[in-house]
């Protein structure tokens, strides 16, 4: 490539920058405009389906961090384990998703909410009651395509803003 020294490279660069002045900036003003996050979002919290869960503990064994704590007791009438304590320390969780993938009864999902900041570290621990599915804590479609199909489509930058040439 021939290098010219008399300033033509600088001039070319200046034209690129000035053209950007006239384009729409790729900016999203957060609290007023929110983008749709991915349908397979590996969220910060987990959602637990109490009916399907049998207390087998596969999720706790698969978790690389050991963030899930399960305490069960036997219930002779129902002939299955009763899950007394199901606690996830979301501060310790690295959102890898191995627990969701490994559940044999499809009882564990990720939640689709991402605005779950807390003021204290102790509040990050999710107990049994905080893990049930509610309208605020929707289920994300990670590893479950049928649940993913119900969520809104993700906003993509390739579709949203295309620079006019």
């Amino acid at each position, binding site marked *: *490539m021939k*290098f*010219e*020294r008399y*300033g*033509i*490279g*600088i001039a*070319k*660069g200046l*034209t*690129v*920058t000035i053209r950007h002045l006239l384009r729409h900036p*790729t900016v999203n003003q957060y609290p007023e405009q929110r983008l749709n*996050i*991915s*349908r*397979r*979002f*590996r969220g910060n919290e987990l959602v637990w389906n109490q009916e399907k869960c049998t207390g087998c503990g*596969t999720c706790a064994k*698969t*978790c*690389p961090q050991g963030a899930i704590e399960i305490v069960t007791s036997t219930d002779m009438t129902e002939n299955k384990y009763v899950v007394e304590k199901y606690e996830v320390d979301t501060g310790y969780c*690295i*959102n*890898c*998703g*191995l627990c969701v*993938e*490994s559940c044999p009864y499809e009882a564990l999902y*990720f939640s689709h909410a991402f605005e779950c900041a807390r003021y204290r570290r102790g509040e990050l621990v999710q107990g049994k009651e905080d893990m049930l599915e509610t309208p605020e804590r929707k289920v*994300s479609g*990670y*590893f479950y*395509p049928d649940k*993913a199909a119900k969520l809104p*489509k*993700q906003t*993509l*930058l*390739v*579709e949203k803003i*295309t620079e006019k*040439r």
Partner: protein
Amino acid sequence: MALRTEPFVLNMGPVHPSTHGVFRMRATLDGEVVVDIEPVFGYLHRGIEKLAEQRTYTGTIPLTDRLDYISSMSNNFAYCLAVEKLAGIKVPERAEYIRVIMAELQRIASLLIAVGSFLNDCGAYFTPFLYMFRERERIVDLFEMVSGQRLTYNYMRVGGVSQDLPKEFMPALHKFMNLMPRFLDEYDRLLMQNEILIARAKGVGILTREQAINSSASGPVLRASGVKWDIRKADPYSVYDRFDFDIPAQESGDCYDRYRQRVEEMRQSLRIIQQAMEQLPPGPVRTEVPHLIRPPAGEAYARIECPKGELGFYLVSDNSIAPYRCHIRPPSLLNLTALRDMVRGWKVADLIIIFGSIDITVGEIDR
């Protein structure tokens, strides 16, 4: 009366002005000329190799995400190749093609960061950096669609990939492939022929062919010095032998050549993705392996061409659910061994540029 000068030690501390992470350099300066340099690292040591011995084979995959956190897919890829080699697991065709698409997209994303921060170190006040991040945003959106996260994907598993591509992935990838070449041309127009950049980066920090080979450099650093060595062609893994692409190489091995090399490699990656998109077969994406894999006792070394060089995983297994030893060959650390020879005799401002052109990630160096 002779003027007596004394070299003094300047500590470019772990909190770095450039965006390369916690890396410390103790430079001995004589006036403004660098006489000697002593790198000190270890500030980001997390003990990943030891942690891998306490987690199962599948549980180590999220750990490998965090090695070179800018290019997580490549790390996953290398680790899964190593485990599959150890355990003799075969991967379905569709999974191989998906892995190649992801690895090449990740290469473009990581090289964008390398180029953007190099130009930022040269002094172009964040403009190329922000343009780069805008393009990387498009790629990261695709990754978010596939795996659910934007930085640590944890997408590949032993025996394939974790989930199939969603329906909207291919149209989005088509749109991206249409936009990207024009962006690369615009980037070229912005700064490739800029006289100031040429004056700053041409001839600066030369790494000769012999020096590069002797110091085990790999990746764009090696190819910019004139050695056409790419593991995708020299020791093909996965399905790379079915694609048609070139290996660019430059002549002199200075900072400008490393910058050009990275931009050329982005273009070749686009070619590979185009071919992989066309050849993608249907089928399953994951072979059935148990959650707790027990490979037979033995050892395996698998290496891939990651965006920074040759990333290798050496696994030793003793037929238990966790590796007995996992050692990682980090390309950034080995590329960095040539830093001292490249830098001596140049000024402080050149030290920053040369360091930026090697393109390190401290997560890989310290593990």
